[in-house]
C-alpha cells in the first residue's frame, strides 16, 4: 500500500520510529474548483478511545495517566492545532449511571487542560449505547452535528447511540439534508466512531447501515473519514473516499482478523504505551490533502 511505503520510507529517512507521518489525498489531487473558495491550511488533532475508567493492569498499568500524558503532548506540539476532535469512547462503559457521570466529569476536567479552544467530542458505544446517549448529551451536547473551519466542512455522524451500531433513518435523512447544502467539490471531513464500511464484521468492526451514509457521500469528490473504535491505525479507501482510524489512548487491539479473538494487546514493559497515541492532521486546503503525523504516548509526555 502506498501509505505503508511512505511510512517506511519516511522512517528510513528520518531514522526514528517515534513519530510517523502519513500522507493521504482525498478526491482528486491537484487543481480543484474548491481552491477558489478561500479556505486556509490548518492543523487538527484527533484523539480517540480514551476509555476513561478502564481498569486492567496487564493491558495498561498507567490507565489513570495515559490521557493526561497525551494532553501534555498535544499542548507541546510545535505545529499548533486549530481544533481537536475526540472520536468516541471517551469513557469506559458502566451500568451505574452515577459512575458514568463521574467518569465523564473527570474526563472533562482532564481535557480542559488542552490549550486549544475548539474541542469537539463524539460518543462511542461505551459512552452512549446503554442509555441511547442521554448522559453523554448532558455533558458533551449533541451526538451528531456539523461545523466549518477554514473551508473544510466537518460532519460528525453518531453510529453508537443506537446500541445496534446503526446510524438510523432519522440521522441519515439529516445527513442527506446537510449534504444537499454542499457543492460537489467541497472539502468534507466526516468524523465518526465505528468504521462506516465493513472493515471486519466478525469483530463487529462495521456500521450496520454505514453503506447508506457512504452512498450519500459518494457524489462529493473530496471526502475523508476519521474514525476510532478499532484502537489502531487503519487506512482504507471505499471508492474515492479515504477512511483513517486512530490509535487508542488506553487499550491497543490487534489487526483485523490477525488473531482468533479480538483481545487487547498486553502491556510490554520493554515498549510501554506501544500502540497508543494520537495524530496531528495538516489540512492542506488547496490540494484537498490531509497529512497525518502519528505521535506515540511516552513516559515523559514530551514531543
Amino acid at each position: 500500500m502506498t501509505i505503508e511505503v511512505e511510512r517506511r520510507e519516511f522512517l528510513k529517512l528520518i531514522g526514528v520510529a517515534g513519530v510517523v507521518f502519513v500522507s493521504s489525498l482525498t478526491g482528486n489531487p491537484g487543481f480543484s474548483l474548491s481552491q477558489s473558495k478561500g479556505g486556509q491550511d490548518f492543523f487538527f488533532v484527533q484523539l480517540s478511545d480514551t476509555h476513561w475508567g478502564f481498569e486492567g493492569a496487564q493491558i495498561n498499568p498507567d490507565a489513570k495517566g495515559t490521557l493526561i500524558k497525551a494532553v501534555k503532548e498535544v499542548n507541546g506540539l510545535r505545529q499548533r492545532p486549530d481544533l481537536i476532535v475526540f472520536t468516541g469512547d471517551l469513557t469506559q462503559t458502566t451500568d451505574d449511571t452515577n459512575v458514568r457521570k463521574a467518569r465523564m466529569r473527570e474526563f472533562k476536567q482532564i481535557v480542559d487542560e488542552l490549550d486549544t479552544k475548539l474541542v469537539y467530542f463524539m460518543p462511542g458505544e461505551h459512552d452512549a449505547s446503554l442509555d441511547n446517549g442521554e448522559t453523554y448529551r448532558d455533558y458533551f451536547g449533541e451526538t451528531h452535528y456539523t461545523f466549518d473551519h477554514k473551508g473544510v466542512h466537518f460532519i460528525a455522524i453518531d453510529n453508537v447511540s443506537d446500541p445496534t451500531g446503526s446510524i438510523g433513518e432519522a440521522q441519515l435523512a439529516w445527513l442527506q439534508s446537510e449534504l444537499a447544502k454542499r457543492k460537489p467539490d467541497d472539502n468534507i471531513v466526516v468524523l465518526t466512531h465505528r468504521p462506516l464500511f465493513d472493515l471486519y464484521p466478525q469483530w463487529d468492526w462495521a456500521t450496520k447501515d454505514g453503506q447508506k451514509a457512504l452512498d450519500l457521500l459518494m457524489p462529493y469528490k473530496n471526502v475523508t473519514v476519521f474514525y476510532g473504535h478499532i484502537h489502531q491505525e487503519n487506512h482504507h479507501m471505499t471508492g474515492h473516499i479515504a477512511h483513517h482510524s486512530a490509535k487508542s489512548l488506553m487499550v491497543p487491539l490487534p489487526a483485523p482478523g490477525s488473531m482468533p479473538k479480538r483481545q487487547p494487546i498486553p502491556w510490554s514493559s520493554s515498549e510501554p504505551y506501544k500502540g497508543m497515541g494520537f495524530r496531528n492532521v495538516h489540512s492542506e486546503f488547496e490540494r484537498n490533502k490531509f497529512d497525518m503525523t502519528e505521535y506515540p504516548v511516552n513516559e515523559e509526555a514530551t514531543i
Partner: protein
Amino acid sequence: MTRRMAATVYLLASTFSASWTPGIAEATQAQQVVKISARRYEFQPTNITLRKGSTTVLRLTTEDRVHGFNIPAMNVRADIVPGKVTEVTLLPQKQGDFEFFCDIFCGSGHEDMRGKITVVE
C-alpha cells in the same frame, strides 16, 4: 407458541446439521433444534457442532435484556428479545468454524459475548 417470534433465515450457500450438539432439545430426521440462551455476557452453549447438509433450527432466548445474534460469515443476524423465542433456520453447506457474537452493545463484557459453530461432514 403465540409468543414466539419467528425470524427464519434460509441460507442458500451455507448449512448445518448436528453430529454432536450441546443444547439440542428436539431432533427429527428433517431438522435439529438447538436452544441457545443469551445473557450478559455469554451465550450458552458457546460451542455448537453441526453437520453439513442438514437443517438446524436455532432457538434463541435471552435471560436478561435484548441481545443480538450475528453470524457474519453466513449473513445471519437476529434480535433476541426478552420474553420471546427467536428462531433462525440454517442449512449449512460448507465445513468450517463460524463465529457468532452479540451485536447489540450490552455492557462492559459485550466484546466477549461470542461463540463458535463448527460444521463437520
